[in-house]
C-alpha cells in the first residue's frame, strides 16, 4: 500500500493555530499539530512523483424526490443534508467536492433546485457528474443550466481529472420510443425495469475523450468521475456500461488510472488491467448486491468485500459519503458509513489492485460470484 496521508477534522501539521485557551480545562497555550487521529481520509492518489497530495470529498445519489409542491421525501433530504454538514467539518477542507450524480429522483426542476440548494451549503468548490435520474426528463437541459457541461476535464496538482456523462443510451430508445418524457424518465429510474436500456458513454463522447487524452502524458495519473461503472457488473440493473471495453481501451495507455463511479448505492472495487475501479455509497438509500436477484448471473468483482446489510430502522444505515486521499495518483478511499464501522479501501501496490485496508485476507472475502 502507498504511504497514506491522514486527514483529520482538527487539521494536520499544516493546520493553522486555533484559539483554544479560552477555557481553563484546556490548559497550555500553543496549538500543536494533531497527528493522525480521525480516519477521515478519502481517496488517495499515489502515482506520479509530480502529483501533489490532496483530498477530495465525494458524495452521490441523493435522489431528492418531490412529494408534492414544495415538499420532498424527508429521508433523502436528511441524507444529503447530513453529508454536506459533515463534509463541511473536514479540516483542512478538501480541495474540492464531487457530487457523483442522481441529485434528483425524477429529473424535475423542483428536485434539482432543492438539491442544488442543499449542496450550496458546501464550503469547498463543487464539481458535478450527471446521473440518469438527472437526465432522462429533459435530457439534461436544466441540470446543465445549474451545473454546467455534463462532460469535461481539468488538471489539479498533477492529476488529470475527467468527468463523463456515462448514462446515455441508444438514440432510438431515448428519442423515439416514449410518448412522454415522464414515461422515459420513470422507466430509466426503475432499477429492474425490463423496458430500460443499457448505459452508454457513446461514440461522440468517446471521440472527445480520445482527443482530450491525446495531450496528457501517459505517466500522468488519470482520475475519471462517472455515474455508471464503466465496467459490466449486472445488466438488469444497469450496473453496466455497454461500451465499457471501448472506454477502457482509451484509458489503457496510461500507467495509473482510477475510475470513481456512483449509481450502485453500495461499496464495490475492482481492478481491470491498469484501471482501478471504486464505487461510492449513496446518501439516500442502499441497494442490494446484484447476486440477491438470482435469475441472472452477475459479475460483482470477486475482490469486493460487500457492505453489511442495513438495519432499516436507522434510515441512514447503509448510506454515507466518502473522502479520497490522493498522494501519488492512487485512490485511498475512506467510506463514512452510519451505524457501521467505516471502511477504507486503498490501492495495494504490491498486489496491484485496491483492497480493504483492514480486511485484506482472502479468507475474509465472501464468495459472491455465484448466485447459488
Amino acid at each position, binding site marked *: 500500500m502507498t504511504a497514506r496521508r491522514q486527514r483529520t477534522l482538527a487539521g494536520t501539521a499544516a493546520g493553522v493555530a486555533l484559539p483554544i485557551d479560552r477555557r*481553563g*480545562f484546556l490548559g497550555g497555550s500553543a*496549538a500543536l499539530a494533531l497527528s493522525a487521529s480521525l480516519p477521515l481520509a478519502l481517496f488517495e492518489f499515489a502515482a506520479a512523483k509530480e502529483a501533489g497530495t490532496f483530498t477530495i470529498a465525494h458524495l452521490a445519489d441523493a435522489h431528492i424526490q418531490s412529494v408534492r409542491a414544495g415538499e420532498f421525501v*424527508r429521508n433523502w433530504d436528511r441524507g444529503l443534508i447530513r453529508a454536506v454538514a459533515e463534509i463541511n467539518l473536514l479540516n483542512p477542507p478538501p480541495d474540492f467536492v464531487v457530487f457523483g450524480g442522481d441529485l434528483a429522483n425524477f429529473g424535475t426542476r423542483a428536485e434539482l433546485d432543492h438539491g442544488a440548494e442543499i449542496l450550496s451549503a458546501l464550503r469547498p468548490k463543487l464539481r458535478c457528474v450527471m446521473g440518469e435520474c438527472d437526465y432522462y426528463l429533459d435530457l439534461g437541459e436544466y441540470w446543465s443550466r445549474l451545473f454546467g457541461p455534463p462532460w469535461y476535464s481539468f488538471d489539479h496538482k498533477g492529476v488529470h481529472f475527467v468527468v463523463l456523462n456515462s448514462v446515455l443510451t441508444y438514440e432510438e430508445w431515448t428519442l423515439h420510443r416514449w410518448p412522454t418524457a415522464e414515461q422515459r424518465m420513470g422507466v430509466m429510474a426503475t432499477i429492474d425495469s425490463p423496458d430500460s436500456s443499457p448505459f452508454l458513454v457513446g461514440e461522440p463522447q468517446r471521440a472527445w475523450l480520445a482527443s482530450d487524452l491525446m495531450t496528457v502524458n501517459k505517466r500522468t495519473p488519470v482520475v475519471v468521475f462517472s455515474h455508471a461503472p464503466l465496467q459490466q457488473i449486472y445488466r438488469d440493473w444497469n450496473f453496466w456500461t455497454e461500451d465499457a471495453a471501448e472506454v477502457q481501451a482509451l484509458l489503457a495507455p496510461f500507467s495509473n488510472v482510477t475510475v470513481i463511479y456512483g449509481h450502485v448505492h453500495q461499496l464495490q472495487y475492482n481492478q481491470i488491467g491498469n484501471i482501478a475501479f471504486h464505487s461510492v455509497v449513496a446518501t439516500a438509500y442502499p441497494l442490494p448486491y446484484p447476486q440477491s436477484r438470482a435469475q441472472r448471473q452477475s459479475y460483482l468483482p470477486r475482490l469486493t468485500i460487500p457492505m453489511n446489510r442495513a438495519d432499516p430502522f*436507522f434510515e441512514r444505515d447503509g448510506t454515507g459519503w466518502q473522502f479520497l486521499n490522493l498522494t501519488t495518483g492512487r485512490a485511498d478511499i475512506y467510506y463514512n458509513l452510519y451505524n457501521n464501522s467505516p471502511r477504507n479501501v486503498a490501492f495495494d501496490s504490491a498486489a496491484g489492485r485496491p483492497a480493504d485496508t483492514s480486511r485484506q485476507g482472502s479468507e475474509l472475502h465472501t464468495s459472491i460470484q455465484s448466485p447459488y
Partner: protein
Amino acid sequence: MTRGSYPWYHSPAERSVRSWLRGNGLSNIKAALWCALAWAASVMAAEAPLGLPPVPIPADNPMSDAKVALGARLFNDKRFSSTGLVSCSNCHAPDKAFTDSPLSTSIGIRNLPGTRNAPTLANAAYFKREFWDGRAASLEDQARRPFVNAVEMGLSDYTPILQIVRSDPQYVAAFRSAFALEPAAVDMLQVRQAIAAFERTLLYADSPFDRWYFGHEPNAMSESAQRGFKVFLEDGRCQSCHTIEETDALFTDNRFHNIGVGINAIRGDLLRLTPELLLAKSRGINVDKAVLADQQIAEFGRFALTETIDDLGAFKTPTLRNVAVTAPYMHDGSLATLRDVVDHYNNGGVTDPADRVSDFLSGGIRPLHLTEQQIVDLIAFMEALTSPQFAALPTASAP
C-alpha cells in the same frame, strides 16, 4: 445482552461447596447431590426481580455479602470529597430512585454545576458502558472518576481515600472481610470493586408492566398503558432503541444516538468548536473533566470520546425503568416531563416544532404523527414501568 459473557454470580455458600468438592474425593452420587444444592443456592443468589435477566458479574469481581456491605458504606461516605460534604449518594440518592431529581443537571462540590443529568443507578449493573457518553467501560471503571472530578467530589488525587480506608478501623475490618487484605495492601482497585458490587445489587423491576407482560397478570397494568405498549412497539418506534426481550427487558440497546437534544445549542459554533476540541484532545486535556465543566464540549456527546463523526451529539440510550420518577429527562435534563419527551420525538427530533432539525440527527428519528390518545397512552405505559420500591415517589407526567 451481556448474558453469557460473564460467569454468573456464585454465592459464598456455593463457592465453599465447590472448593470442598474439589478438595474431597466424593462419590458421583454425593457430588451430584452437592452440585444440585449449589446450583439452587446460586440461582437464589442471582435471582433478579421479574422482568430483569440475571446480573452479569465480572470474573475478577465476584459478589459477596461482605463486599456489597463495604460498597454501600463507601458509596455513602462524604469524606471522599474535598469538602467532606459530597458522597456518591448526593447525586444518586436512594430515595430519589438513585438520581438527584428534580435537578436538571447535577450540583457537585461547593455547589458547582455539572452539565449532565444524573442517570439512575437502578439497573446500571446491566449497562455495557457507563456515563451518558459511555466513557467508562464498566461500573468498576466508572467508580473511580467522580472522586477526582473538579465539579463532582473535587479531590486532586486518591490519597485521601486511601488514607481513610487504610486507617479507619471499620474499613480495615471490612476490607479484611471482603478482600482478605491488610490495610497497607488496600488500593483503589478494591474500593472500585466494592462500590461496583454494591451497585450490582440495585435491581429494580417487578413493575405493573412486568407483572402484565412477563407475569401474565391481565389486570396488572391499566388499559391505557396496555394501548400505550402497542404505541411503544409500533407507531412510537420506541422499541428499536429501548429494547425488550422475550423474557426480560432492559429498555436500552446500550448504543448511542443523536436524538436532537443539546447538539442544536452549538450548531452555529461547530465549525470552530470541532477542530478546537480535537486539537485540545491531542494536547492531552482531561475529557472526563471537560465534558462536565464545559457546556459546549458536553454537547458533543460520544464524539468527544470516539472522534467518530457518526457519534456527533450522540448519547447513550437510557433505560426506561422507573422513568416516571426520575424527571427531568435527556442527558441535560432539558425536558421536564414525559409529555415533553414524547412531543420531542413526535416532532421528529426537535423540541420546538419551528426549530431546525439537527443536521446530524440519527436516522432512526423521524416525525411520528401520534394522535393525542396515543400520546396519553404511551405516557401511561411509561408510568407502568415504576418498581414497587419507588411507587410512592412523585411522578412528572403532568402536561
